[in-house]
């Protein structure tokens, strides 16, 4: 029987600011209150988790996801309100407690596992399994100093996942090396998750959360923006991202791009409105990739909308420069010219008339 209750909890970091000024909300991170000298990382958080709950934490960088995990783990006692936990807790972050570069792999397994709360007997039982899983082979008796970054990560992951807690707190983006190990890691993680009675996972991958969790919290500036079933929350979140991206918010477009990539990786269907914004980001970061404007025009027309004439004309000019044989583009450009011409700048104007005239 595990339980995790958060009652009106706040996490406020003391800061010593050299310059005073009115408190303001930065684009990322918590709220800075210079007068009181605190940064509010989490604000008035309340929820309760019981056996079988799988909670996902969503939000942009600095929204308070990791702080929330640390709060739940008991590492940050809330500055106001309180957190009550019942059951053993284990946190899986990128850094493993007790890991030292001077020790051998085997020594580090013992040290880290002890820090994570395993008994010596249990460690001895699991030692071989951990070594096998980390795929370190003969390296296990060499100092960690000479390991590759991937090997250190594998070692840390293998130890951290050997602990079987009742309440499991996971930070996303546990870098796990190459594709082969990443698959294995995912399998192990799923086993661990299945065995824990409460799971809290912070991730940027909304689709992952939607598939894993029965409840999600969307955090922004340390507040719970919304709380609900994962799928529903994901749709709300996507709508927010798309809306922000439409009004030329470059960060939101980047967000849309990341979400699309994520969906692609999982082989899930990509909503057209999201893809449209993702393509805008893609066109900005790699203007030479002509696949992007082509797909962009397609996505816009599939949604039954039309771009502003001059914008579409500009894209067509670029595309015709590369694919002069595309008669459909040429026809479309000729159609657009009367409206677009006055709004085009000089070099584009000349090229447009030349291209349409051929």
């Amino acid at each position, binding site marked *: 029987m595990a339980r995790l209750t958060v009652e009106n909890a706040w996490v406020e970091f003391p800061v010593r600011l050299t310059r005073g000024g009115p408190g303001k909300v930065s684009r990322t991170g918590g709220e800075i209150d210079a007068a009181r000298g605190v940064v509010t990382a989490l604000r008035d958080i309340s929820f309760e988790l019981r056996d079988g709950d799988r909670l996902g934490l969503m939000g942009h960088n600095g929204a308070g996801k990791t702080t929330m995990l640390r709060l739940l783990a008991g590492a*940050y006692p*809330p500055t106001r309100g309180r*957190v009550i936990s*019942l059951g053993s807790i284990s946190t899986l972050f990128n850094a493993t407690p007790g890991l030292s570069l001077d020790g051998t792999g085997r*020594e580090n397994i013992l040290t880290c596992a002890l820090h994570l*709360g395993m008994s010596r007997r249990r460690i001895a039982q699991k030692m071989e399994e951990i070594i096998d899983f980390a795929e370190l082979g003969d390296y296990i008796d060499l100092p960690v100093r000479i390991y590759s970054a991937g090997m250190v990560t594998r070692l840390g992951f293998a130890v951290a996942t050997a602990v079987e807690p009742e309440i499991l707190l996971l930070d996303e983006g546990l870098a796990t090396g190459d594709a082969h190990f990443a698959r294995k890691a995912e399998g192990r993680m799923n086993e661990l998750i299945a065995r824990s009675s409460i799971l809290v996972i912070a991730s940027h991958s909304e689709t992952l959360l939607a598939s894993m969790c029965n409840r999600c919290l969307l955090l922004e500036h340390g507040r719970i923006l919304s709380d609900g079933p994962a799928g529903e929350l994901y749709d709300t979140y996507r709508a927010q991202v798309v809306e922000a991206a439409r009004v030329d918010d470059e960060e939101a477009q980047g967000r849309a791009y990341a979400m699309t990539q994520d969906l692609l990786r999982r082989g899930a269907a990509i909503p057209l409105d999201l893809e449209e914004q993702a393509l805008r980001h893609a066109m900005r970061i790699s203007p030479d990739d002509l696949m992007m404007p082509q797909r962009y025009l397609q996505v816009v027309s599939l949604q039954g909308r039309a771009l502003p004439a001059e914008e579409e004309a500009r894209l067509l000019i670029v595309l015709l420069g590369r694919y002069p044989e595309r008669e459909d583009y040429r026809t479309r450009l000729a159609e657009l010219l009367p409206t677009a011409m006055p709004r085009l700048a000089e070099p584009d104007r000349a090229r447009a008339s030349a291209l349409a005239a051929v």
Partner: protein
Amino acid sequence: MNRGSTDVAVTAQAQTERVSPSVEPDQRRAARPVVSPSPGGAFEVAWADVAAALRITPVWLHSGWIDVVWRFRRTRLGPFWHTLGLAAFVIVMGVVWSTILRQDPTQYFRYVTVSLMVWMLIASLVTDATGIIIAGQTTALSMRFPYPAFAFAHVWRGLLLFAHHFVLYVVVMAGTLHWPGTAVLLAIPGLLLVIANGVWMSLLSGILCLNRRDLMPAIGSAMQIMMFITPVFWPRDMLGAHLGFAADFNPFYHMVRVVREPLLGSVPGLDAWAWVVGTLVIGTSGTLWLYGRWRDRLAYWY
């Protein structure tokens, strides 16, 4: 991952648990709910954490020991480098200072050896402890970790290094043909009192330096000055009648005495024991109060 496979795995796990009910829990199991921030007064909070640190004794025993192993792994002499450094120091000091201070060389050799051994233990408990909590960042920020465990690990580490220096003690005693007699057994309670003091000193030092990083070099310098004003290289009597109180009111002097004097074969006076016990009581209560008062803020100071 899809939900279906999770559910299957959950059921499978439930079955294994039914088959083998003796599955040992991996974690320090919290039978009662853990409330954070810790409820209760300062001493209650502090005591709960000391108890928690004692419950994870295997963790700090191992980490203190493995730290020594790791720190000296790539050296040939390992921790004996410290002993060797101490030996070189003692020889130079023995020759030069016995002349300057007009002391009997063999007796002065013994005096300086034992004094320095004990002083280095005491000083390391304060000076090297400045970084113990800062170094534990990864641990302290990924779970609710009892900070006194860092102090326990540190004191244990200091004791291990002291044990290495003991070789030098035996060599010097044999070399100068001196048998301390049964009084030497008093060094055991003396040492126990010193390390008990070491626990509060290193915890205090670690907490203060976590909050005010400037204190790290400051404490280092302060302890260096302390070495010169504490009767370590010279006997207390040399301070004379007027300055004698400077030693008498120096708790470090009494800590040195309760270990040094038995090791040299004499019995420390009752005043020394009283001072060390008094320091222990006052220091421990003060530190526990401070710890209990600020325990829930420590993580925010990283």
